[in-house]
């Protein structure tokens, strides 16, 4: 008996089907990861269990997971808007830094002078604006000069990172930091309060949750969100419908960049209390957030779950690094494989594949 595989584009899929595919992709990804551990001579069940017990299994671990989820949720939330409009922003890493730098300037300049609440407010506002301005650049490059945003955001990541380095070893270098490449520590009223016994900076956490709820409504309930989705799905129809491509693109990158900027404020004001080298401040949140957004199927509310999941992998990665003597890069293996399997899973979402008995 001969069979052939019939592949046809699928029209319309249910949320359930979509969820099942994502779960199967995740499971397949974990299987592949396990296989890699096996080659390394590490018991895969043990390693994977260790990762999740390290991040979700203990109170301490979970607190760390939440801490790392904050920037991921903020950034990935912003990315859902840009990606819905098919604007491939991969520059969140430096948009985060722009926000961090803006907040640092405000904290060091005004920190001691203004009341605490005002300073914090200004820092968040400044961080949003910083990230938004940095995010608008690629939007303008795209709509005015036709420059591919993947390339421009990628380039700007490095420009931004080098610029921050220049600041922290140059003009902004702290006088009280014993020669380390740090700015001075923020004054107390410019430091975010944390949940006792953790590093969870509450305000940013609340902002992150509010942001994704806001984004959910923005995307699915407002005129702007509607226009973003129409542009993303069919640019010709958007033109036909009289939607302003330039305005909408700039706005969506303001939101995407601005939220990354807020994440940056949280990192400097909540965790480090000063600005320092980019790799210390971000540890790749801008890139990890891409997977977070992807796993959430560009749904802002689901970003909370996928953000926690990947924050858990970051924290669990630290845990096995110590207990199994594995390198820090193990986390990248996780992220990379899961992302590969997610995009492979999408194929099954776009196409229905069936085995058909050959009957010629």
């Amino acid at each position, binding site marked *: 008996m001969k069979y052939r595989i019939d592949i046809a584009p699928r*029209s*319309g899929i249910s949320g359930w089907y979509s969820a099942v595919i994502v779960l199967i992709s995740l499971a397949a990804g974990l299987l592949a990861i396990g296989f890699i551990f096996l080659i390394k001579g590490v018991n895969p069940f043990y390693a994977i269990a260790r990762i999740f017990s390290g991040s979700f299994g203990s109170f301490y671990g979970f607190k760390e997971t939440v801490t790392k989820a904050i920037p991921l949720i903020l950034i990935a939330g912003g990315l859902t808007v840009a990606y819905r409009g098919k604007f491939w922003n991969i520059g969140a890493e430096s948009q985060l830094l722009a926000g961090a730098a803006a907040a640092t300037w405000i904290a060091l300049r005004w920190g001691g002078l203004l009341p605490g609440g005002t300073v914090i407010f200004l820092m968040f506002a400044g961080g949003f604006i910083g990230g938004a301005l940095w995010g608008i650049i690629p939007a303008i490059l795209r709509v005015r000069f036709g420059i591919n945003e993947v390339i421009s955001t990628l380039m700007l990541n490095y420009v931004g990172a080098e610029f921050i380095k220049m600041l922290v070893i140059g003009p902004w270098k702290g006088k009280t930091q014993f020669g380390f490449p740090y700015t001075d520590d923020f004054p107390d009223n410019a430091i975010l309060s944390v949940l006792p016994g953790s590093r969870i900076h509450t305000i940013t956490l609340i902002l992150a949750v509010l942001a994704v709820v806001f984004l959910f409504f923005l995307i699915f*309930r*407002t*005129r*702007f969100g*509607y*226009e973003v*989705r*129409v542009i993303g*799905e*069919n640019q*010709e*129809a958007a*033109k*036909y*419908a*009289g939607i302003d491509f330039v305005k909408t693109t700039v706005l969506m990158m303001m939101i995407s960049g601005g939220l990354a900027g807020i994440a940056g404020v949280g990192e400097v004001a909540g965790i480090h209390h000063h600005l320092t080298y980019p790799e210390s401040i971000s540890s790749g949140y801008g890139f990890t957030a891409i997977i977070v957004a992807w796993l959430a199927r560009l749904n802002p509310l689901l970003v909370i779950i996928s953000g926690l999941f990947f924050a858990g992998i970051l924290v669990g990665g630290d845990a096995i690094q110590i207990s199994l003597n594995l390198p820090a890069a193990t986390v990248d293996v996780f992220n990379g494989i899961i992302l590969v399997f997610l995009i492979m899973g999408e194929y099954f979402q776009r196409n229905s594949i069936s085995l058909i008995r050959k009957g010629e």
Partner: protein
Amino acid sequence: MHRIETLEMKGISKSFHGFYANKNINLKISSGEVLGLLGENGAGKTTLMNILYGLYRPDSGEILINGKAVRIKSPKDSMGSGIGMIHQHFMLVQNHTVAENIALGFTDVPFFFPEKYIRKKIHRISAQFGMEIDPDKKIWQLSAGEQQKVEILKALFLEAELLIMDEPTSVLTPQEADDLFDIIRKMTSGGHSIILISHKLDEIMGICNRVTVLRKGETVGEAFVRDIDKKELAIMMVGREVFLSFDKKPLPRGEMVLNVKDLVVYGDRGNKAVNSLSFSVYRNEVFGIAGVSGNGQRELVEAITGLRKASSGEIILEDDSITNESARVVNTRGITHVPEERIRFGIVPNLFIYENAILKKHHSHPFSRLLFLDYDMIKEHTENIVERYNIAAPSINVPVKSLSGGNIQKLIIGREIESKPALLVASHPTYGLDIGATEYIRKQILNRREEGGGVLLVSEDLEELFEICDRIAVIFKGQFMGVLSAGDSNIKDIGLMMTGSLKIETEQDGASDEV
């Protein structure tokens, strides 16, 4: 390879999704002949030629070369049998040189330094047929006529004996077209044969030896060109003695809704697509624009609906000028638009039906309040449209792409008519739809006419135009060849007008033709 002395297509049938594109077609061509293949768009000419070229496989029928049946399963087979095709849209790489484009498909080219070899051969072949082409020029530097010569060269390199040309003059200037005909004459005198797809009668009469006419997928006539005249051909192509049908309720013309004055619009290639057009559309009227596509219809519609800038002239809706206003403003003022290529322009396939039902209106009351969309209102509105326009949909909560073409078009028509626009602009509204959906859409357009709206209908389907229009303007190369109304004695000559062979002067907007 052997010469193609004769090529025959016998009993060719091909259907797509139960719809016959070709039905039992016969065709024959001999060495040294130019065979014209005449028919309106959708008559099945291109399908037939794609079968001959191996892009499609016929459901039944056979192809005989020199009396022997051959199997053509892919372009490779047809090239191997000496058949070449020049597509209407050139298959050229814009950023590559002429030589590179030719080298790609040419099997005998050496692996190293292919261009050197090709260059020599280009000079030889092009001299033979009187085509001067610089092999080192990039394609984008060439005019359309020169690009076409590159396509011809490509075929000649592969030693094509029979060349299929799909509307070769549609992109050419008259001078370039004359050059092309010279080349064709040189080729046929050397024993090549040519199948020329066209709907320009002058061309057929001027260059072809014989002509085969297709209509709705079937052969309706065959003749030697010397035995037939243009009028007869036009009638064959269009299908019958034509007259405006009077099934629709006669209505007195209402007030003027659209007034276009001396409109000039340029096309994407910088060509003057709409050349100083003036006309008016009235309430209670369907104003049709007939013509072969590519004669400025798209640019005209885009200029009226705010999607393209007019370079001069004026467009007046009721009493206000809407010249070069944005699509949104035009829409708000009261012009709605059923676009051509409905999937590409008219809908967002992945969004839900209800989201598509408000496209263009999403920003305005009652769907949008402040910055928010009122989804309850939107869904109610969508349910209304779905019910009122008989749209077969499992629910309004599914992506619109899961609907059939007919239902998608009903949704678009419903969306555009529901707001009772002063003017409805519809481009090819029934193209590719089944009979049921077609009738339905036409009825909706007539309803709009009875309700007091004006309709501008662009169509290539003469039957459709005759059935629902009050007046029909025939467009050719951006100008009207005449504006016809019921009872006009010139209607029988519409085929001649569409093909640019006849121009009649009518009074401005045919004001004398009150129904």
